[in-house]
């Protein structure tokens, strides 16, 4: 039984590591991702839009299968985990072989290897040492660092470059896993939301995507926000001056613009929108006493401010309605869009014991503009603005970026760094007793261009052979190596 379990586990592992499984998984990812771009997706599409697009029955089926939110469905996550597992299994399964290849380079080609290797060439040489020296020099001028390989009964020359290229594919796979890891960390511990702040407002409550609220351990205050336009009126730049408030103290300040967020405590604040908040910042009025004798006065009011006009009279800014309508002698708020604004002020006279409703614009049925002891005129209206901030916390993004950088490096190695190896071995013909120098080379990609390189090398060795004989012999005498 135990053997059975082990055998089936082994089988499962091999299945996971096989390229077929990988390809099937990739095809599944492709199909489901494509489905996720064709079917309208839940969080981004409004519910009523979904209802107009699909029949209730179809929508129920789509919702039940998770097709309306493919990228957050459990089965898509499972698929991604299976892909990761397959990459890990395939890498582990193939790694030992590659590692052996990498850590113990094949330096001396034996006879069977010499027979089948392509490209290769043999040159006639006077003796072993001449051949070896010529090969060494040729490789040197080729930019390689040749190495003499000495075994008990034979020796040769070995040179290689960019052995790391053999491991490049593992770098690529590891980087993909790193990216997945970062994405999973973000998926589990990360969150995204929005924070809309009026100028001067402080808040620590971020509204998350699903409608819930998250309270930050610090608060953000918007001191000022603004917009710059191009000549044609399209927005050029949005900016907000933000301050981080912690324990009643400003701990950090920054003016953010689109593409340049504020980062504090692992939370990032992005400028995403800007606009009027439908609230009035300041209303400026000019007041003249109704008798026509007094001076004209300019007064600035915020909502709910009360300002004395003289000893007997005060004016209060009671209400601002961004979009009003009048019906049956009543003023209604139609919407919060700044479409059709109205301001309501109350002028109170203590001696008359009476309040006068002053409206801008003056509405006939409702307003007492002309009856009031002061004639008011609206001269300026400053609207308040809000800044829309995207807030996100992505603790895994460093893994993602590290993975991306590693991926770039890995791919550069995979495609553009070639592991090249050259061998040169003096061979003695058993019958004639004459020596030839066997030269061979191998490259792990771009083999056709490499064949040319081997030819070049052979040409170079021939050239060196022609110039060497004397020096080589003298060296041999000096080192005492020979037959």
């Amino acid at each position, binding site marked *: 039984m135990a053997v059975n379990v082990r055998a089936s586990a082994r089988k499962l592992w091999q299945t996971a590591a096989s*390229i077929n499984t*990988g*390809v099937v998984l*990739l095809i599944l*990812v*492709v199909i489901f*991702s*494509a489905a*996720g*771009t*064709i079917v309208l*997706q839940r969080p981004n599409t409004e519910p009523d839009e979904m209802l107009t697009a699909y029949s209730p029955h179809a929508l129920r089926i789509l919702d039940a299968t998770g097709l309306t939110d*493919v*990228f957050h469905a459990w089965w898509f996550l499972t698929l991604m985990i299976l892909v990761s597992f397959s990459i890990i299994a395939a890498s582990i399964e193939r790694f030992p072989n590659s590692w052996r290849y990498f850590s113990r380079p094949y330096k001396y080609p034996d006879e069977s290897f010499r027979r089948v290797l392509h490209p290769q060439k043999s040159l006639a040489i006077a003796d072993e040492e001449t051949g070896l020296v010529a090969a060494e020099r040729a490789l040197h001028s080729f930019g390689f660092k040749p190495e003499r390989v000495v075994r008990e009964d034979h020796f040769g020359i070995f040179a290689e470059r960019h052995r790391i290229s053999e491991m490049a594919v593992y770098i690529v796979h590891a980087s993909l896993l790193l990216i997945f890891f970062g*994405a999973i960390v973000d998926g589990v511990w990360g969150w*995204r939301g929005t924070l809309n702040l009026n100028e001067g407002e402080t808040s620590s409550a971020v509204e998350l995507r699903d409608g819930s609220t998250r309270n930050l351990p610090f608060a953000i205050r918007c001191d000022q926000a603004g917009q710059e336009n*191009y000549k*044609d009126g*399209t*927005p*050029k*730049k*949005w900016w907000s001056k933000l301050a981080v408030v912690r324990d009643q103290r400003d701990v950090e300040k920054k003016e953010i*613009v*689109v*593409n*340049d*967020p504020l980062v504090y405590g692992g939370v*990032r604040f*992005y*400028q*995403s929108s800007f606009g009027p908040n439908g609230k009035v910042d300041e209303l400026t009025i000019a007041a003249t006493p109704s008798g026509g004798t007094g001076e004209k006065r300019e007064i600035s009011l915020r909502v709910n401010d009360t300002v004395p006009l003289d000893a007997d009279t005060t004016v209060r800014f009671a209400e601002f309605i961004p979009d009003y309508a009048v019906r049956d002698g009543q003023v209604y708020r139609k919407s919060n869009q700044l479409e059709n604004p109205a301001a309501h002020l109350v002028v109170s006279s203590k001696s008359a014991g009476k309040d006068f409703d002053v409206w801008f614009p003056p509405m006939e049925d409702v307003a007492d503009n002309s009856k009031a002891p002061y004639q008011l005129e609206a001269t300026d209206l400053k609207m308040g603005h809000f800044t829309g901030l*995207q*807030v*996100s916390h*992505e603790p895994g*993004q460093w893994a*993602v*970026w590290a993975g*991306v950088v590693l*991926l*770039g490096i890995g*791919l*550069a190695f995979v*495609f553009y760094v070639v592991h090249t190896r050259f061998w040169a071995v003096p061979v003695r013909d058993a019958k004639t007793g004459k020596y030839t120098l066997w030269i061979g080379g191998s490259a792990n990609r771009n083999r*056709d261009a490499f064949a040319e390189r081997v030819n070049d090398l052979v040409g170079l060795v021939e050239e060196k052979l022609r110039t060497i004989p004397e020096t080589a012999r003298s060296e041999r005498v000096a080192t005492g190596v020979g037959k």
Partner: protein
Amino acid sequence: MARAKAERQQPTTGMTLIVLVGLAIAFLLFMAFLNVVKSGNLLSETNLLFAALIFYAGAGALYLGFGVTGTESYVKFASLATWLGLIANTAAVAHRWYEAGHPPFASVYEMLLSFVWTLAVLTLVAEKKYGVKVIGTVTMPVAIVGVVLMQLLRTDVHPLVPALQSTWLHVHVTLAMLAYAACALSFALAMMFLIQDEMKTETFLAVTSASTLAIYASVVLTRFEKWGGLSLVAWNPEQKSEVFLSKGVRLFVTIPDLGWLMVLALLVVASPLVFYGLARWKKKKDDGFLTLANRAVFISILLQVMALVMFLVRASDGRYPSLDADGLFSTSLAASPFILSGLVGGVFISLLYLLLLWRRPDLERLLPSADNLDRITYKTIGIAFPLLTLMIAAGAYWANQTWGSYWSWDPKETWAAITWLVYAGYLHMRVTRGWRGRRAAYFAILGFAVVMFTFFGVTYLLPGLHAYA
């Protein structure tokens, strides 16, 4: 039969076409010059683009002439014309860049400008470096369609909205253009490989017919209206923009009778496929049906040209009723870039098939060997894949800077990832399974199809954040 007849024809003597194309270019330049004298502005962007169009058209004609006759001297003049077109195109890009103050990647118009430029450069590179001389036959018509589309789109310099003001945007788009151009090249090379790999001409017939059928079927299925009309998006010529009924809902006008013409074209375009099917079904060595099929292709080209001309004439002029609103509205070719590209593409694919049918031995002689093409295809993908990776990474980094999220599964993002996966599949199959030759070529073709969908399909068919491009 047709092939035998074609082989008996004497190849046209070399100079005729060159002289004709030269005269045409000279004539058009003269006309353009008159226009310049009238407006008094020599180096405007429109003039530069017009010059580029003239040269690319001349180059296209010469490359095509080379493809048909195999006369070597055409190529020299064709690449000269391409060079001249490229110079004009570069000047237009530079002018645009200077005028706008940012690299020309911010709108569809600017992207097309850069795309055509990249295409012309790659054509010259492929020709000079790899000796793939016929590549101009494919790329130049694409460049011409690109420049023509540009004339239709709105050209005023648009200031960049805040989200687009980032260096990463330029990096992202430049990488995308390079990657897509490399993918396009690998596709063209894979097709040439299939020719060299002695794939049967009939198979190309079936593919040609199926592609044109798909084009007309999608036009008819989505745009055919009751009583034989063809509905097109309404266009406001003053604002150079589409007409919207409400936010996101476009107004469609119906051009009467054009729908019937499209249905007729659909039927004729389908006929070669039917004859091919019959030929396969009978299995006997009976060339009768295949001859019929080839004739049907010829007739279908005539009908396609007719449909295209009628479409051009009626869409660019006149006012038409709409089903959704009272009154008459105008439309424009710019309002239907996909139908236009589809119709031009259909004619073009069919013409390429005829070229293959009549001149296959010459083509085989002119193209590099199958082995070489296979290898160059792989190399091109070896360039395209890292570029795709970097493009996605740069896009993710930019998105993180702008929206606070490096990946939001927006359709364009998702399809970019799918493209990446398809090419990753290609590389794995090639390296671990040793897929060479035909299967690898099919994979390269599939990859490019996905690229095209990502580039065009997603923008116009699926909603998302990439509203800018």
